Structure formats: structure tokens, C-alpha cells
């Protein structure tokens, strides 16, 4: 048996059998696609098309902006009908700039050319090509993949790790993908290995997905890629925990994985890289798990980006009963959707419609310091102490207790017998700290501005003073000369 490196963690009931029985089905084109410009971490993309333009499938519609950003491509050919605000798939319900695209049904590809003989190419070229295709981490974090690959190539990494953990309950998109497209994933792994010049590739898959493990091992035979099984326990799929489980390396705090010679990507990201390099196909669709007992038919769908969640559910299944909560992503780290009329974006690994007893909501009661959260925390923090400090308004004390190391996995809130909203408290505190930092930075800048203005005003006053003095002196001299002229006559 392998040594269990994960400290703490919880064992929520998986509910994976709801959606991992059937194969991935393709979702036909809806009548309108809503391409959000904020589908990734970092600055939103800037639109390149105007209302009324005709675009073809795979054509670049929004360019990436700034260092950390990702472009957006048209999932199908059609006409741009609007460039307006639309509710974003975000708990706040705030709007985001969206390109509305009306498919013309021709599904006509733009002229895209695959990369011929990629392994002979310079690794940097692979990275830029991945960036140009708009590929982001499809595990849910949506960090632009090219930036990660580029910096890993620069700092030099030994190991590329593909994350097939998928430890969130309900989600089976990676599971089905590994079962059906194992060869494409291995191909993507080799390409990414070449892109970052990694010496070894390890793929970690949780042991509750035996068929996926078997298919991937079969596809990886002979390619030198190790496919390892990891114990299935939440949050095994989190980057720091999977790295420690597979390689025994503990990523130092506040450092990027590349600094420890590692880079980690989701298996779906690897497949997207394979499609981009081999077929020249940008990231225009993704696998979405549709699950939750409030739905009649659960399953996995390959959905073009920009499809509304409501269109997906109306087509793919109906409602068994009124869902108590709609979630994008998994139940542990996923976010509550304000309503179903929000577009699918690159990070939507799942759309869940959960019933009351699945969520099991209970009123919070006082913390009895039972320390089950301390046992459950995979990062070795003290959730109850941090929460007590935050509730008293002392966010700095929570920061000293290690709030910045909290990955927000939700294990503590899951096990808390008093069902306290611990992760909510921690995210509020992180927001508060970030806000204060922003204010402090701004104050430093304004101090400089105020000083500079003071100097300028003082200088101007001095100059005006000299000017007046000079003018007065000139006037006095002139008066003296006139006086001199009058009296000699």
C-alpha cells in the first residue's frame, strides 16, 4: 500500500456514480453564445470584434491584456449580435462584459494550422502557441497555462505532474475524459514535457477511478510516463497535497511550484494542449459534469464555451424537484450561481443542482473547540483560532496564525459539528487584508504626489516672488531714470 502523505482531509460521499456511467455526449450549438471576457485569472480580455461582424469558428475575438491574461476564441462561425454586460457566473451576481454570438449553423472553421513536427520545435514556441490558443487551467483555477509553462521553462523544472485527482464529489468530467481520450491526454503530456523540458512526467489518479487508471496506464505504456494511483480523500487533488503524495516534496510556503522543480496541470488542460498543437484547435469547448439529485438525467457533456447553464440543463435533462442550490464547480469549493442564465466559462468543471438533504444545511451553533477542524486541515492550520480572531475583528492575528496558507478547501467547514461558516470567515478576512494592503499602497503613492505638489507650489510661489521683485526693481529703475531726466532740465 502507498504511504498516505495527505495530512487531515475529509471523506465526503462521492456521488460520482450519478454521472460517470455514460460516455461524454456532445452538446449541439444553442441559439446564442455569450462569450465572457473574464474566463481566466488575471486581467479580462479586450474585444477585437464589433457588433455585426461575421466571425468563423476558432477565430480570435478577444485578445489577452497584460502579463497574466488569456485570449477568447469564437466557438462557432456566426455573427456578433451584441457586446454588453451580462450576469457573470459569480456568487455576487455582478455583470461582466460579454460578446453575444449568434451561430449561423455553418460551423465553418477559420484557417487554423497545426504545428508540424512539434518535438523538433523550440519549447518556447510551444508555450506561445498554447498561450495563443487561450488555454487555461481547466481544473477550476483557470490560471493561464502559457504563463505557467513559460515560467517553468525559464526556472527549469524536473517533473511535470498531471492532476487526475478530481477529489471533489459529483464531478466526473476528468474521469470520463481519461477513460475516453487517454491517448490524447498522453500526447498532451509528452508535448507539455517537451515544452518545459521536464525529465519525468507523473500522472496522479485517485484510486476511486479504476477504469480511468487502467486506460491511462495502457495509453502511457512505453512512453516513460508514470501513472500512479493516489488514495482518494478530499482534498488530495489540491496542488500541494498531490505533489507531496507523488514526490514527497513539500512545496515551501509563498513559493511557486516551479521554484521546487515541479509544474502541475490538469489532465483536461493536457488534452487541450494536444488538440491545439496537433489540430490547431483553440480552446472553444470543455467537458462539463451535470449532476445533483434535483436533475432527472445526470451526465457529462462537451459544451461550447458561452452556452447558458439554463440552455444546457433544459436540453440535457429536466428538474426532478426544485433544486435547493445551484452550484458551478464541485460542492466543496464551487460557487453558488445567482441564477441559471449565466454562461459556461473555461473554469466551469460542473453544474450541480443539489437538493436540500444533499446540502444538509444546519444553523451554526457556538464553537465548542472540539478541534475536528484542526484534524481535518490539510495545511496544518488552526481554523477555530483564526475564526475566533476574525469574528472579533482582528484579521492581523488570523494572518499571524497562517491565514495566507489556507487554500480554502472547505474540509474544516465540512467536518465542523457546529457547522460554522469557517471558509466564509477566512475568505472575508483575506479580502479585508488585501483591501488594506491596496489602501496602504495607494496611501504611499498619494504621499509622494502630495509632497511633489507641495514642492511645485512652493517653487511657483518663489518664482512669482522673484518675478515681482525683478519687475518692481525694473519699475523703480525706470522711475529713477525718468526722475533723472526731469530734474536735470
Amino acid at each position: 500500500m502507498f504511504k498516505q502523505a495527505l495530512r487531515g482531509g475529509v471523506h465526503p460521499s462521492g456521488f460520482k456514480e450519478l454521472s460517470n456511467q455514460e460516455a461524454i455526449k456532445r452538446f449541439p450549438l444553442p441559439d446564442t453564445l455569450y462569450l465572457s471576457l473574464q474566463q481566466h485569472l488575471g486581467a479580462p480580455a479586450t474585444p477585437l470584434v464589433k457588433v455585426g461582424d461575421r466571425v468563423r469558428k476558432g477565430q480570435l475575438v478577444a485578445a489577452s491584456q497584460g502579463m497574466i491574461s488569456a485570449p477568447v476564441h469564437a466557438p462557432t462561425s456566426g455573427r456578433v449580435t451584441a457586446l454588453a454586460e451580462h450576469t457573470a457566473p459569480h456568487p455576487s451576481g455582478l455583470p461582466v462584459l460579454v460578446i453575444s454570438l449568434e451561430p449561423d449553423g455553418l460551423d465553418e472553421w477559420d484557417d487554423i494550422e497545426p504545428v508540424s513536427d512539434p518535438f523538433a520545435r523550440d519549447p518556447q514556441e510551444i508555450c506561445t502557441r498554447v498561450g495563443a490558443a487561450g488555454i487555461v487551467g481547466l481544473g477550476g483555477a483557470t490560471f493561464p497555462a502559457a504563463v505557467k509553462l513559460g515560467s517553468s521553462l525559464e526556472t527549469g523544472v524536473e517533473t511535470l505532474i498531471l492532476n487526475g485527482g478530481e477529489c471533489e464529489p459529483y464531478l466526473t468530467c476528468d474521469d470520463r475524459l481519461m477513460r475516453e481520450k487517454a491517448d490524447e491526454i498522453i500526447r498532451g503530456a509528452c508535448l507539455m514535457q517537451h515544452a518545459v523540458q521536464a525529465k519525468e512526467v507523473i500522472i496522479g489518479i485517485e484510486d476511486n477511478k479504476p477504469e480511468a487508471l487502467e486506460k491511462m496506464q495502457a495509453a502511457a505504456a512505453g512512453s516513460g510516463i508514470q501513472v500512479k494511483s493516489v488514495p482518494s480523500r478530499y482534498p488530495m487533488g489540491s496542488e500541494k497535497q498531490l505533489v507531496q503524495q507523488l514526490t514527497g516534496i513539500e512545496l515551501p510556503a509563498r513559493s511557486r511550484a516551479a521554484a521546487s522543480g515541479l509544474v502541475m496541470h490538469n489532465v483536461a488542460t493536457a488534452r487541450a494542449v494536444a488538440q491545439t498543437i496537433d489540430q490547431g484547435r483553440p480552446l472553444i469547448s470543455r467537458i462539463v459534469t451535470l449532476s445533483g439529485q434535483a436533475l432527472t438525467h445526470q451526465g457529462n457533456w462537451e459544451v461550447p464555451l458561452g452556452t447558458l447553464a439554463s440552455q444546457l440543463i433544459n436540453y440535457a435533462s429536466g428538474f426532478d424537484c426544485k433544486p435547493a442550490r445551484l452550484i458551478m464547480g464541485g460542492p466543496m469549493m464551487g460557487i453558488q450561481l445567482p441564477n441559471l442564465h449565466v454562461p459556461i466559462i473555461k473554469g466551469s468543471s460542473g453544474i450541480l443542482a443539489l437538493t436540500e438533504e444533499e446540502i444538509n444545511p444546519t444553523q451554526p451553533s457556538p464553537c465548542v473547540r472540539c478541534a475536528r477542524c484542526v484534524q481535518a486541515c490539510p495545511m496544518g492550520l488552526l481554523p477555530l483560532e483564526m475564526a475566533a480572531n476574525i469574528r472579533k475583528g482582528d484579521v492581523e492575528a488570523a494572518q499571524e496564525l497562517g491565514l495566507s496558507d489556507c487554500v480554502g478547501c472547505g474540509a474544516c467547514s465540512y467536518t465542523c459539528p457546529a457547522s460554522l461558516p469557517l471558509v466564509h470567515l477566512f475568505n472575508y478576512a483575506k479580502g479585508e487584508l488585501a483591501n488594506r494592503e491596496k489602501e496602504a499602497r495607494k496611501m504611499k503613492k498619494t504621499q509622494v504626489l502630495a509632497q511633489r505638489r507641495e514642492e511645485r507650489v512652493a517653487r511657483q510661489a518663489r518664482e512669482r516672488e522673484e518675478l515681482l521683485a525683478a519687475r518692481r526693481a525694473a519699475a523703480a529703475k525706470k522711475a529713477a531714470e525718468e526722475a533723472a531726466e526731469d530734474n536735470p532740465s
Partner: protein
Amino acid sequence: MNQPVHGPHAHSNASLSALMFQVILALTPATLYSFWLYGWPAFNLWVVCVGSALFWEALFLKMFGKAIFQHLRDGSALVTAWILALCLPPWAPWWLAFLGSFLAIAMIKQIFGGLGQNVFNPAMAARVMLLIAFPVEMTTWISPQAVTSAQPDFATSLAITLGQAPQAIDAYSGATFLDTVKNQLGQGKLLSDLLINQDYSLGATFQGMHSGSFGESSALLLLLGGLFLLWRRVISWQAPLGVLLGAGVPAALAHFFHPEVYPGAAFHLLTGGVILAAFFIVTDPVTAPTTARGRLLFGLGCGLLAWLIRTFGNYPEGIAFAVMLMNSAVPVIDRYIKPRIYGRTRKGDPLPTRPASNKSGGEV
């Protein structure tokens, strides 16, 4: 749009009242046995204790404007009162229980802010204050054999509980072993002859044939209750093990060096409140440290102090003082014994990056 709901949208079905209910379940066998052992007055005492505790809890919850029914239902007041009742002498007068539960629920728990906010263990703090304030009532022990032979009927038991039948109590009274050992040892008698004429035997103490506090008599049933809690994962094993080691090891060592003066480990563990403390008092999560190693140290401290006070101090039963003293040390323990944060050294600064490859397996 109402407040967005955050965080994990799933929850384990652990809940506070379930935990408290299992603790009560674990306490019932020992309590029923004590009812049988000490007869009706014990039952009356238990009823008064639990009843008054719920009364005080409700009163103070109302005073602080909290939802009375919701807080009463979590059963924490019930558990505290139950444990306090087990620590009182079996035929104690009603007002002792009434005052004890006032101290435990109101003074130690509610004014600190209710459930989860108290810093001292309510039952132990109340027992200590009663012991200091009413030394006579708190040490009138009843010998079980006398009771089992001549059961006082319900009427006299009511009189006993209401304190109007002192002569009846004398008929049944008998000192506990802790008292006899402490007083006689004081007068220089040898331990061995002391134990022989008191027909003291391990088996009898195990079954509780010897007088002692209300619930401390049957060590066996308490042990079973404790193991049930351990199996159900309601409590963790570190603190109980700490208490048993903390009290047992010094007793065994002392007995080894001076067998005549110091009683052995078994004696110390099975008499008095050590077993009750080990499984039900020291494992109270509110007043125990948060880390596993911290709980072990906490238990060791309780056991050692209990043994010290029993052997050298003035009071025959030291476990209540020991628990209170260690409760005061819990914040210090929590501050210095913390889990190592992932990716950081024990002192807290980030681990060195790549050159020293830190291939340390996940250390729990």
C-alpha cells in the same frame, strides 16, 4: 439578491447534540448502577442537580437574550449537571446540588458567554468551590453495603435529601478508602495492615463495593462508557491515556520505592474520580487543548497533579484541583504546541526552496 451563500455546499452529519447525547449514553450505566447502589436519595440528588442546571441555564440564557430552547436542546447543561452529580457524595443535601449547578452553569459557563466560551471545566470548578465552601457536606460518605442491605424507602430518602434526617445518614456512613489511607498514613500506620482489615480488594473496588462519590464507585462501568465514547470517536484517546499514565506511573514508582507508605498504581487509578475524570472530564473539548500532543500533555499534567495532591496535599481527592489547574494552562499549551504548517518550518518561516530538497513525508 439575498446574501450569497459561501463555502462548502456539503456537510458531514456530525452535530453537537449527537455528540452530547452519546456522552449521556456512556454515563447512564454507571449512574443507574449508583442509583441501585445508593438507593432513592441518590436518585433525588441527581434529579435536583439536573433540574436546577436546566433552570439556571434557561434563566441566564433569557438574561443574555439568547434563544432559550435552541441552546437548551444542545444538551451541554445536561452533561455538565450529570457529571457534577456524579462527583457529589451520594446522599448530599438538595441545596448542595442546587448551589453546585448554579456555580457550574451560571458562574463558570454562562457569564463567560455560554457554550464553548468557558475557560474552566464547569463541573470541576463547581466541585472545587463546593469542597472548599462546604467541607463537611462534601465528605459525608455512605458505605454501599449498608445501603444494599437495608434500602431506605422513598419517604425517608426524601427526608434525607431535604436534610431533615441526619441520624439516618450516620447509620450508613463509612469513610472512603482515600480518606482512611490519608488519615491513617498520617498517623504512621503501615499501609499493609491498613488494607487488610478493610477487606480491600481490587475486584470489589472494580465493582464499586466501596464508598465514594455518587458515580465514582463503579470503575468498570465508567471504563466501559469511556471505551464506548472512544470507539464512537466522540473523544480522542490522548487525554484519557495522559491521565491514566500521569496518575499511574508516579504511583507505581513511589510504591516501588516505599511500598509501605505509598499505595500502588491500581489503587490510585480505581479509587476516587480518576476514571470518571479520564474519560468524561478531561475530554471536555471546550476546556482542553486543540492539538493531539497538547491533549496528551494536558492529561499527563492532570494525572500527575492529582497524584501529588492526593499524596502530599491536604485534600484526599485531588483530581478536581488538577483539572482546574491544567485548564488554566491550556492557553499556554495551545500557544506553544501547534501543528507544523505545510511548507513552513516549526517556527513559521517558509521552508528552504529547491537546493536542499526537502523530501519529508507528510508529518502528522
